[in-house]
């Protein structure tokens, strides 16, 4: 079938095309490097398919347009990069508080502040713990190839609708800018508001009107909504953990890495295996929910863990929580937009392997 043909695309373009194919017809954004190709693609395509592309006056405006479109039952999204995502945080909190589906893409760059425009993973905490105030979480996908950018995006709106929650795709400048072959998914039928009984669609008083809000002045009522949301989160945790296990069957040193850094970690694991070191990798595809179960599986053979990140050490906290410190967890990372090299990571693996050998020798004495 012609549709199954591999094409070359930038990660940013694959995100945009997959969003359109998953039924998104409303994109609100504001330009920022390194995600601009995504917005540019939407600007070109949306008008041709009856969709809406709107470059807002600011990131704050864009996310509130998403809030509005989503409240009316549309599949709506926005995209930005780190500093722009911070600006959107208030709106994302409102969307979560109103139990609305939406997709937010962050093509991360170095931070804090304006930082750099080079690839980074320094928004892990922001994405998984607190993008905005209040009691809420959101599902976070961390693709590591252009194909996975398309696949995660294609799934994002379905999951967002199913659980009525914002979903984030956490990419970075490397994945956004690079080209790889991708097989684009089949276009889905655009779901309209008819499937969303909560949507504020305007019925001419044919039914009692729906109210979409995050404001509850009665604390008991707000608590009820928050508890109900956290009950949904438990279902998400049970059903939506995604990860890839690479060479972990007999791995003594298990690397944990996501997105761009997992590509470097994979190369380092190959080098380690070639040198006779039993290394493997767990690659979270969902950062929230964190793939606790998949990671804990590796405790059967693992003696030590290494979290590889493009930041000063953020995911390592979730790795330690998941492992409950049943095995030591070390860290290797670069920050500011520097991409670690496979050789650097391999060096760290060798160091850990030597320490493990030393410990084994001591035990034998």
């Amino acid at each position, binding site marked *: 079938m012609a549709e199954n043909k591999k094409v070359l695309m930038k990660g940013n373009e694959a995100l945009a095309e997959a969003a359109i194919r998953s039924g998104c017809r409303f994109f609100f954004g504001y330009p920022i490097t390194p995600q601009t190709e995504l917005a540019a693609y939407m600007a070109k395509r949306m008008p041709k398919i009856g969709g809406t592309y709107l470059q807002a006056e600011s990131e704050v405006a864009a996310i509130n347009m998403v809030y509005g479109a989503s409240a009316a039952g549309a599949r709506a999204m926005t995209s930005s990069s780190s500093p722009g995502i911070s600006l959107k945080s208030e709106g994302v909190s409102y969307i979560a508080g109103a139990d609305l589906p939406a997709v937010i893409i962050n093509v991360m760059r170095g931070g804090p502040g304006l930082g750099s425009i080079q690839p980074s993973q320094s928004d892990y905490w922001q994405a998984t713990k607190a993008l905005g105030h209040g009691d809420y979480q959101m599902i976070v996908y961390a693709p590591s190839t252009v194909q996975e950018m398309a696949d995660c995006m294609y799934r994002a709106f379905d999951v967002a609708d199913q659980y009525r929650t914002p979903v984030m795709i956490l990419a970075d400048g490397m994945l956004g*800018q690079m080209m790889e072959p991708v097989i684009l998914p089949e276009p889905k039928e655009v779901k309209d508001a008819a499937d969303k009984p909560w949507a504020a669609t305007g019925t001419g008083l044919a039914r009692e009107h729906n109210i979409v809000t995050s404001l509850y002045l009665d604390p008991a009522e707000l608590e009820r909504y928050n508890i109900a949301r956290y009950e949904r989160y438990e279902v998400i945790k049970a059903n939506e953990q995604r990860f890839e296990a690479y060479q972990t069957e007999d791995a003594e040193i298990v690397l944990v890495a996501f997105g761009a850094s997992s590509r470097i970690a994979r190369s380092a694991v190959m080098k380690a295996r070639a040198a006779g070191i039993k290394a493997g990798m767990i690659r979270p595809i969902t950062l929230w929910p964190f793939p606790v179960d998949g990671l804990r599986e590796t405790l059967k053979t693992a003696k030590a863990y290494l979290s590889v990140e493009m930041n000063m050490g953020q995911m390592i906290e979730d790795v330690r929580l998941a492992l409950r410190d049943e095995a030591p967890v070390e860290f290797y990372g670069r920050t500011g937009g520097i991409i670690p*090299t496979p050789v650097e990571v391999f060096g760290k693996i060798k160091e850990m392997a030597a320490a493990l050998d030393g410990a084994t020798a001591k035990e034998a004495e």
Partner: protein
Amino acid sequence: MGRDFNMVFAGFGGQGVLFAGKVVVESALFEDRELSWMPSYGPEMRGGTANCSVCISDEPIGSPLVLEPNVLFAMNQPSYDKFIGSVVPGAVVLADSVLCPNVKDVEGVSTFTAPFSQLAEENGLKGLANVVMVGKLWKETHFCEEETLFKAIEACVPPKKAHLLEPNKKALRLGMSL
């Protein structure tokens, strides 16, 4: 040279180094190989130089950033100077002798220089020195089948610029003859 390629294409912005890399990965796509293409998009690009990393392999590509190239495609002196120290033994280095006059003999590395930009101009192919160099790169490394290379150039020249397809093919053939 084996079948795994880690290439760096570098030059001034506007010389078409990103396009040259794209032609090479497009050919790999036609042959259903694993590949990646990653451009520089940072401050160096805004300063007027551009480069891209290209990986071709039969195994999935790990890091798409090429730090130890076995092919260096240099269209100017600063690019050559920046990357020549990182090439691995057995590498193939291509440099435009007009824009990159100071090329050294590196042991274990095959260096090919020619006045690619001047030759392009003399053959009525002004602005296609990048494609001439891709032709030469193909001749020295056979990164794909010959007919695939021509299919790739057809795929890379946008329909709007269809009138440039024949000159691009001519530029490839010129490079292959050098």
